[in-house]
């Protein structure tokens, strides 16, 4: 029972951590994309002939914005399915 409650504790805290990683990453990316898209629309409205070039550059910056969020998603999924803290508890207890 002691082991089960330890595992439950670790899992519960891990889930909260994963939720924070995913949620904060999503919030930051959403705000960033919103600003980026808004600036692009403004620029395209000002000079429509530059719109294709601006769109390419927008996608480039979008990829950069996504990067750390995706790194966070990768780490969050890693903690969900291959939690190293859990294996530490299990190897220490059994």
């Amino acid at each position, binding site marked *: 029972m002691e082991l089960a409650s330890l595992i439950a504790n670790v899992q519960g805290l891990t889930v909260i951590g994963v939720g924070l990683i995913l949620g904060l990453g999503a919030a930051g990316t959403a705000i960033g994309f919103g600003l980026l898209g808004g600036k692009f629309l403004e620029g395209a409205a000002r000079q429509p002939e530059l719109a294709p070039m601006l769109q390419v550059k927008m*996608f*480039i910056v979008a990829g950069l914005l996504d*990067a750390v969020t995706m*790194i*966070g*998603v*990768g780490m969050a999924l890693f903690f969900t*399915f291959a939690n190293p803290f859990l294996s530490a508890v299990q190897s220490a207890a059994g």
Partner: protein
Amino acid sequence: MSTEGGATAYIVHHLTPLSVGEGFWAFHLDTLFFSAVLGGIFVWFFKTVADKATAGVPGMMQNIAEMLVEFVDNQVKDTFHGRSDLIAPLALTIFCWVFLWNAMDMLPVDLMSAIGGVMGIDYIRVVPSTDLNATFALSISVFFLIIFYSIKVKGVAGFVKEMTCTPFGPKMLPFNLLLKLVEELAKPISLALRLFGNLYAGELVFILIALLPPVIQPVLGFPWAVFHILVITLQAFIFMVLTIVYLSLAHEEH
């Protein structure tokens, strides 16, 4: 398949690579196989088009190849401010190869698993970009190219000077070095993890959708698949553009 143990086991089964060996020497045979096959397809396609290229009315394959080459060439011309014969072919290779890797994610989740099961292979992951080994292999190769070109264009003395004397003067040498090291290391790490994170998350969402009741699957699966088409192309494009930008920075002389 609706018990919790069943769902987790299904997910883990689909995300476990076919690996041989332990620890550092674990070879992911499925990643190696599929990335080699896709590289072969890429080389075969362009070689066939180059052999049969005509200046008259082009066929479909030649059209596609010309579009790709022109697209990459324009990107390189816009972004690369040095002189090099290597950059455009490198960019084309990276774009097409990463795009083919990512496109493997569009195959149905259970299809490759079933084929593998028939052939006696228990675990198989068909998307090389969901394997950290593959994405880091590509980005570490780009990292070595960056260092190689930095030294080639600036000389060893110039390279050392750039590492130790920018952005602040020579008096703050340790601080400069630390800053430059972090900046240089951030390039391959962010390249690899960006591609990995996007594709791993995409594959995981496909697997999670596969766990839903079959009636709901198209409702969620179809929009996600369509969005994923954008992500596939975008991530290959970003990898290529950032490679060109980093190599352009390496070619800079003051």
